């Protein structure tokens, strides 16, 4: 049983978004980190890079496999979570507390297409 946090938006590719004004804080769900297993590396863009809804912006690596990260919204990266470079396992410890990037959204209406906690819970079958 994986944890799902109320009040966040979720993508079908298992990213979550927390909206703080015009900024989207983006991470991966607890379900995703469990599927990945021990995360050993987080590949992220640089602040200033642009990301596009539905397009790969980075990756999580476990021992066995790499898994692409897809941006749930379009915009410009304002911040990346540097702590994950040294301690990628933080995502395994708490996937919701450890965000990956923050994006200044260019089109906040894109959020409407994302799922709420109840719909996401249905997607992952829990």
């Amino acid at each position, binding site marked *: 049983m994986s944890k799902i946090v109320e009040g966040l938006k979720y993508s079908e590719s298992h990213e979550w978004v927390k909206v703080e004004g015009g900024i989207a804080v983006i991470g991966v769900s607890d379900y995703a980190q469990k599927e990945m297993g021990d995360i050993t590396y987080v*590949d992220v863009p640089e602040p200033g890079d642009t990301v596009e809804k539905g397009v790969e912006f980075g990756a999580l690596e476990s*021992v066995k496999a790499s898994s692409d990260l897809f941006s749930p919204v379009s915009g410009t990266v304002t911040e990346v979570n540097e702590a994950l470079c040294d301690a990628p396992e933080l995502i395994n410890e708490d996937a919701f507390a450890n965000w990956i990037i923050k994006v200044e959204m260019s089109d906040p209406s894109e959020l409407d297409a994302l799922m709420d906690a109840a719909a996401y819970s249905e997607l992952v079958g829990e």
Partner: protein
Amino acid sequence: MSEIANNEAAKKTCLHDRHVALGAKMSPFAGFDMPIQYGSIAAEHNAVRGAVGMFDVSHMGEIFVEGPDACEFVNYVFTNDIRNLEPGKVLYGMMLYPDGGTVDDLLVYREFAENAYLLVVNAANIEKDYEWLCARVKDNPRTGKPFGCTVRNESEAWGQIAVQGPESEKKLVEVLGLGGAASLEFYSFYDGQWNGKRLIVSRTGYTGEDGFEIYSAPENICEIWDRLHEAGVTPCGLGCRDTLRFEAGLPLYGDELSEKISPIMAGLGIFCKLDKDFIGRDALVRQKEQGTEYKLVGIEIEDKAIPRAGYPVELADGTEVGVVTTGYHSISLDRSICFALVRREYAALDTRLDIRIRRKTFPGKVVKKRFYKTNYKK
């Protein structure tokens, strides 16, 4: 849909129910539904390096060659020289196509019975190897007649467990009562009985640690698994089997050896005795004289990013000169390392080679392929 169909078609080893009951992550491998990991790959990997772990390797193939010409026949299809192999000894080598491409890599066991050999082959290649052997046995080029020996595929009648790690000998002796294991040298085996069925114990493995491979009938393998499990031996999946063999510099057929990758390209010439005749020998002699276009090397990059199979190997100016075949962030060594096939002019140790990982290029250099110092029993 296709995934479901594949799963239904996948074969199951005798230990399949136990893997499912343990909650293993299962995945199709070589036509079998196999456990990738029970918990964490890193924890299973570390259990083998530091204590003892066990693997279900019942998917591997067992092919028996018996008869007056068995030695001559096996020696004709096998790259290593078995003429001086004593009963109870094991030899590693390959079977090759005439062009030097690899049919499979395998272990040859010289049985205690006269004129009998056991060939242990990769699961994905059982049918192909069996057909290859059956075709070759019909034609002894020396006599123009068939070889006087039989080839029997008994893969489905045998289960196999690999018990690997520094405490493996202790577990075999104390938990299973296999006292003969203690006196086995590396690459030796003995024949025994368990519940009236044949049991083969060999001091071999695929992890870089001391360890054993136990072959017997499926019901015996299940009992042995249960007893080792009760005694605290860590069940290990194919995930850590790959990280362990990779660190120890051991090739995997399909990645570092294939129909297109000869043992010379893979740096395994030591297992090919060119002073005897075998299928593919002439091609290897040519490859040794002229050099192969590509060579298998180790590459280390200065970053925690992970070079995965298929990623391009580049020169500093971006010219592509090779491809990664297996790569990990090594669990035992904390280094990002890989095997790669690169053009031979860039295969020398310390050559600067970069690896492209998604959008970025990571500088690296050629290093020795045996990344981890192995701990075999001398």
